[in-house]
């Protein structure tokens, strides 16, 4: 972040979902509520998101180590990122808050010099990212997504893109301590709508919202 012109405080970033109780953390306005519910939807939009494109079989795949349809954690740019094979010749790298630039630089370094045409784009601010966690998470998805997310088809580490509540969404199954957990990644402007549709679908199971672990304000 370059220094500010003018006298106002540093720029404030906002996630894709309107927080119900707002608080500021690491330059982000986040939802201050915590949740201990069994079924939780958290806004993880502040995480760094970098989209890498290249040939289906080529440098990015071999460097990042996943293929289309699968997601795995890898060391990228000095942090651990979740690398999602989000489509043919397309990888989504989800890293800790604030690491987008470093991630871009790191990947650029590793693919440079290769003959294929590879491009990178920082979509941290361009996409909404939320996480749905809980044993009933598959039931919630079953109300809004036509793809079967059972183990046999989408085990932990599976990733696909489909329509969720009519919004085109990347879905990544990324379980938490054996509990089903899904990352949902869509165009930023429809994030609010998608979150509302998920809350609506999860209502009968007692869903609650919260903010990304790590950004949840203290106290």
């Amino acid at each position, binding site marked *: 972040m370059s220094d500010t012109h003018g006298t106002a405080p540093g720029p404030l970033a906002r996630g894709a979902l309107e927080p119900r109780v707002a608080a500021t953390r690491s330059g982000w306005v986040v939802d201050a509520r915590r949740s201990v519910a069994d079924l939780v939807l958290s806004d993880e939009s502040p995480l760094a998101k970098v989209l890498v494109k290249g040939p289906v079989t080529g440098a990015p795949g071999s460097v990042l180590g996943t293929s289309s349809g699968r997601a795995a954690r890898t060391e990228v740019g000095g942090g651990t990122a979740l690398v999602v094979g989000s*489509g043919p010749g397309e990888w989504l790298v989800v890293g800790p808050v604030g690491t987008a630039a470093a991630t871009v630089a790191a990947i650029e370094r590793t693919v440079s010099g290769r003959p294929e045409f590879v491009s990178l784009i920082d979509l941290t601010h361009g996409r909404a990212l939320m996480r749905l966690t809980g044993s009933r998470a598959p039931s919630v998805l079953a109300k809004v997504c036509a*793809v079967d997310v059972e183990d046999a088809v989408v085990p932990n580490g599976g990733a696909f893109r*489909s329509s969720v509540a009519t919004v085109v969404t990347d879905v990544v199954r990324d379980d938490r301590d054996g509990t089903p957990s899904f990352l949902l990644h869509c165009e930023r402007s429809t994030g609010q709508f998608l979150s509302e549709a998920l809350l609506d679908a999860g209502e009968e199971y007692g869903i609650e919202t919260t903010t990304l672990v790590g950004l949840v304000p203290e106290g």
Partner: protein
Amino acid sequence: MMLLPCPWCGPRNATEFRYGGATGARPDPVSATPQQWREYLYTQTNPLGWSREGWYHRAGCRRYITVERHTGTNEVRSALDTATEDG
């Protein structure tokens, strides 16, 4: 609902795709006569039987695929990536 066997994503509901139809080859824009060009614009084959047609997986891999479908039964017998002919 019809399932389309996307070569990249596996079988998916047809509503995830946009139908592109059985568009003919683009005539040479320099030498095409109005007849030929407008035939290309307006007249597609409309068979009752097997048809080769383009679909776009807009809610999935975002690839254009070429599908062989029977227009009487909606049975699909193949689907390949249009650009790479991968199945």
